C-alpha cells in the first residue's frame, strides 16, 4: 500500500499528482474537467498518502491544491447516484466512510497541511481543506456548502467546523448554501490567510524550501505573502447582527419568520436572497442540517463524523426521504432546477421524522463509522478554528 513515497508519480491520468521537494510534499487534485470533484480513487489515494507521510520522518509539510480553476468542487456525487441507481447504496456508503476517515485524519494530523484554495471550494473540497491547519484563500476563492439545495446536508465534518464559526454564521452558511469569497473566508475563520494569487508561486517556493513542521514557522512564512483583503459592501460578514438575531433561533421555522420580520422592517436584497435560498432548499435537509450543526457545536470532530455517516446512510438508503435523488435529478441530471421535495413544507416534518436520521441504520450488515485511533485529539484539532 505505502510503496508510493519514494518515486515521484507524475502520470497525466493520475487523479492525484505528487510533487516532492526537500521536506514538503505537494498533492495536486487533478480532475480539472470535473472541477477536481473527489472520486473514490482520489479519496483512497489521498488517505494512503496522508497516512504514509505522517510516519515518514523525511516529510514535514503537506501542501494541497487543485489543478485548474477549482480547488475541489465536492465529492463525486454523480458516481454515488450511479451506485444507488444500480441498487447498491452500500458502495456509496463505502465511499463516504472513506471520505470521512480522510477528513478525520486531516483534522487530527500531526504535521501541518497547507491548502491553497485558489478557486472553487465546495462540499467535499471544504472537508479536504478546512480540517487542516492552514487554509490559504485568494481573490479567486469561492466557498460554499450547497448540500441543502441538493436534498443532502453539510457533511464531511461540516457540523464540526461550521458550528465553530463566529456566533451563528455557521447556521447561515450551512442552511442557505451562501457563497463566500476569499475575504469572507478569512473574516469568518474558514481561511487562516489571504494571499493574492499572483504571489502563490512565490509562497509555494518558500514552502518547498522549508524544513520544519513547526506551525509557528509555517504560519510566519505564509504571513510574508499575505495581505488584508477588503470585505465587499454587501458582505454577509458585515451582517453578523442580523444573522445572529435570525439564525440563533430554535427551529428552521423560527429562523424563517425572524428573517421575514427583518425583511418587513427594511427592504434588503440580501435578506430576500437569503429567504429565497431557504425556501428553495429541501425542507427535510434544512431541518436535519440545523439539528446536525447544533449538536456538532457541543461535540468533537470524531463524533460529528460518526453522526454524519449515520445520516448519509439514511439519505442513500432512501427509506426516510427521496429528496437526495430528486435533488440530483433536478440539479445534476435533468438540470431543470425545479426539484419536487417530499414532504414539501417544513411544517409537515415532525421532530420524530428528524430524529430517525440520527438513529442507527437498521440493516444487518450496517455498522457505525469506525474511526482510526489518533493521538492528536482533541484540543489540537479544535485549535484550528
Amino acid at each position: 500500500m505505502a510503496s508510493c513515497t519514494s518515486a515521484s508519480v507524475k502520470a497525466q491520468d493520475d487523479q492525484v499528482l505528487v510533487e516532492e521537494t526537500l521536506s514538503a510534499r505537494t498533492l495536486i487534485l487533478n480532475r480539472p474537467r470535473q472541477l477536481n470533484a473527489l472520486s473514490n480513487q482520489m479519496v483512497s489515494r489521498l488517505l494512503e498518502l496522508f497516512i504514509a507521510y505522517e510516519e515518514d520522518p523525511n516529510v514535514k509539510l503537506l501542501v494541497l491544491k487543485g489543478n485548474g480553476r477549482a480547488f475541489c468542487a465536492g465529492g463525486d456525487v454523480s458516481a454515488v447516484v450511479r451506485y444507488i441507481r444500480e441498487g447498491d447504496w452500500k458502495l456509496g456508503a463505502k465511499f463516504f466512510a472513506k471520505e470521512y476517515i480522510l477528513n478525520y485524519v486531516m483534522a487530527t494530523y500531526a504535521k501541518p497541511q497547507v491548502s491553497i484554495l485558489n478557486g472553487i471550494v465546495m462540499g467535499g473540497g471544504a472537508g479536504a481543506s478546512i480540517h487542516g491547519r492552514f487554509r490559504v484563500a485568494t481573490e479567486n476563492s469561492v466557498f460554499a456548502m450547497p448540500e441543502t439545495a441538493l436534498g443532502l446536508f453539510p457533511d464531511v465534518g461540516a457540523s464540526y467546523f461550521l458550528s465553530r464559526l463566529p456566533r451563528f454564521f455557521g447556521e447561515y452558511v450551512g442552511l442557505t448554501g451562501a457563497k463566500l469569497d476569499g475575504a469572507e473566508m478569512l473574516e469568518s475563520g474558514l481561511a487562516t490567510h489571504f494571499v493574492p494569487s499572483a504571489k502563490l508561486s512565490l509562497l509555494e517556493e518558500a514552502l518547498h524550501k522549508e524544513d520544519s513542521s513547526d506551525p509557528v514557522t509555517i504560519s510566519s512564512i505564509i504571513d510574508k505573502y499575505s495581505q488584508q483583503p477588503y470585505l465587499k459592501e454587501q458582505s454577509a460578514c458585515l451582517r453578523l447582527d442580523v444573522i445572529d438575531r435570525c439564525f440563533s433561533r430554535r427551529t428552521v421555522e423560527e429562523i424563517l419568520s425572524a428573517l421575514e420580520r427583518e425583511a418587513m422592517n427594511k427592504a434588503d436584497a440580501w435578506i430576500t436572497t437569503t429567504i429565497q435560498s431557504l425556501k428553495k432548499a429541501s425542507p427535510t435537509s434544512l431541518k436535519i442540517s440545523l439539528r446536525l450543526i447544533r449538536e456538532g457545536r457541543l461535540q468533537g470532530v470524531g463524533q460529528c463524523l460518526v453522526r454524519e455517516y449515520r445520516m448519509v446512510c439514511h439519505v442513500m438508503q432512501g427509506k426516510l426521504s427521496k429528496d437526495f435523488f430528486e435533488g440530483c435529478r433536478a440539479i445534476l441530471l435533468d438540470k431543470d432546477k425545479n426539484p419536487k421535495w417530499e414532504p414539501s413544507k417544513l411544517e409537515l416534518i415532525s421532530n420524530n421524522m428528524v430524529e430517525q436520521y440520527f438513529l442507527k441504520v437498521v440493516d444487518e450488515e450496517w455498522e457505525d463509522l469506525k474511526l482510526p485511533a489518533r493521538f492528536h485529539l482533541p484540543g489540537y484539532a479544535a485549535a484550528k478554528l
Partner: protein
Amino acid sequence: MASQYSSERAWFRTRILTNHFPSSPSLCVSPLESNACLSYSPPELHESYDFDTNEMRKLLDMHNIEDRDWLFGLMRQSKVFNPQEKGGRVYVAPDYNQSMEQQREMTMRRIAYLLERGVFNGWLTGKGLESEMKKFAFLEVVGIFDHSLSVKLGVHFFLWGGAIKFFGTERHHDKWLRDTETYAIKGCFAMSELGHGSNVRGIETLTVYDSKTGEFVINTPCESAQKYWIGGAANHATHTIVFSQLNINGSNQGVHAFIAQIRDADGNICPNIRIADCGHKIGLNGVDNGRIWFNNLRIPRENLLNSVADVSSDGKYLSAIKDPDQRFAAFLAPLTSGRVTIAVSAIYSSKISLATAIRYSLTRRAFSITPNGPEVLLLDYPSHQRRLLPLLAKTYAMSFAGNYLKMIYWKRTPESNKTLHVVSSAFKATLTWHNMRTLQECREACGGQGLKTENRVGHLKSEYDVQTTFEGDNNVLMQQVSKALLAEYVATQKKKKPFKGLGLEHMNEPCPIIPSQLTSTVLRSTQFQGYQLAEDLGRAFSDRAILQTFMEAEATVSVGPLKNVLSLLRSMYALTCMEEDAAFLRYGYLSTENAAAVRKEVTKLCSEVRPHALALVSSFGIPDAFLGPIAYNWIDANSWSSVKH
C-alpha cells in the same frame, strides 16, 4: 553525593527556566520540548463505551434534549457569556473576578440576550405540560452555566411570576403575566424578614385596609420586620410581592400576599419605600439581594392576590377557607416549584463536579508501583474509586429522583398535594446536602487544581451553599417530613388500615428476616435493598424513595448493557446508603458481620463501575465548554504558549 545532586538540580532548573525565557519573538510561542515529559492523553483513547451514552442521557435528562442543546449552543456562541480559549478549547463561565456590581450587570445582560432570542417565550403565558417542561429544561441548562443567572430567573419567573399566577386571579394574570415574560417589568418576592425566615407565619410586616380610599397600607413596624435577602431588590426589580400580616378592623387574618411597585420605569426607588443592599456574599454575587422597608405604602385594593381570600371595597374579609391553618397551607402550596427546581439543579451541579473530577482522574497520574515504573492513573487507585464512584452512583439515583419529583409536580392534583409537599421537602434537603458533599469531595480529588475558579468544582461550593437553607432550611424541612410520616403512622394505626401512599406500602408486610450470611446475590437484589432503607425516619424515607425512583427508571430499560450498568449503580447506591447510615447497626437490622459484608461489596462494585466511569459522566450531556480546562487537556491549557503575554 548530596552536593552533586543539588548541582544537578540547579542545572536542571536553569535549563527549564531558560526554556521559559523567549530569546526571540517566535520562541515565546513555540512549544517547549516535551519528549521526556508527561503528555496529555485524552481518556477517550483508552476508556471504552459499553453502552449508548445518548440513550443514557435521555434517561437522565428525561425531556427536551434538543432544546437543551440549543440553549447550550446559544450561550457558547455569545460574547456575553464570556468565552475564554484555553489550550485550544473554548470555555464559557462568568468572570467571577469582576466586582459584585459588574457581575450583577452581566447577569442582566445575559438575560437580555436570552430574552431577545425567545428563550423565555411561554414561561408564564404558555399553556400545558409541554411549555412547562421546556421551561424547567431551560432553567436547568442556564444553571449549569451560572447559579446566579438561574436564581435571578427563578425569582422573576417562578417566585414573582408564580405568585401572580397561583395566588392571583384573572385580573392579575391579564395585567402582569405578559409584561413579566417580556421583562417590561422586573419582579421580586419579599417574604423573608430579618427576624423570620423559615417561620413565615411569624413575619411582622403589617398591612391594614383603608375603606375610605379603597387602599391597603403596608408598614414595616420594627427593624426585625425589614424584608431581607430579596433577590432583585437591590438594583433591578420594579415590582415586588409583599408578604404581610393582614389586619382587618383590628383582627389579624394571617399572612397574605400583595403586589407593590418599588421602582419607577427609570429605576428610581418609589416614595414610601427604602431599599438597602445585602452586600457582598460568599457566592451568588450576580444576584442583587436587597432589604426593603415600607413606610405607609399605599396600594390599590386590587393588588391583594386574592385566590384564597379577598377584602371587599367596604372592608369585609371574605374567604372560602375558614380555618387559618388550612388557608395558610393552601397559600404556600404553589411554592413547591422552588423546592423542585432547587433539588434538580443541585444534581446538575454535582454532575459538573463529577464529570470534571472523574475526567481529571482518568488523565492524571501519581506515584509508581515499581521503581521507575509508570505512574498510576488516579482512578485506578481503589481509594480514589471509593471516594468518587459511590457519589457518582448517588448522583445517578438522585437524577432519577429529580425526574420523579418533576413528574409529580407537573401532574399535581389537590389530592396529591400532601405527597408532593413531603417528597419535595425530603428531596430538596437530601439532594442539596448531597451536592455540597460531592462538591467538596470532587474539589479535593482535583487537588490544587480544584482551587482554581476556572475549574469550577471548588467555586461551585460557594455558589450552591445557599441551597441548603433557602426555600426552607434543610433541617426544618426534614423535621416536617418526619412529622408528616409519624402523623400518617398514627392515623393508620387508629383506622387499622394498611398504609397507602407516600411509598410506605412496604410497611404493611412483616419485617423481613435478614440472613446472617449476606452473599453478593442477596446484597444486589432489589428486594433486599428495598426493605433495608426504610428506617430512621426523614432520611430513611428519602433514601428509600430515591431508590424506588431508581428501580422504576431501571425497569423502563430493556435488557442489555445499559440496564446492566444501571443495576450496578443501583446496588452501589443502596449499599452505600446502608454503609453510611449507622441506624442499621444501631437498631440491629444489620449485624456487624452483615455490615462488613456490605462494605466489602461496595468496594467490589467500585471496581466493576470503574470501566464505565468515563461513559457514565459523558452521559451527563454537559458540553465541554461548560466544564473547566482541568477536565480536558490540562497540560496544553497550562503551557507557556497559552499564557496571555
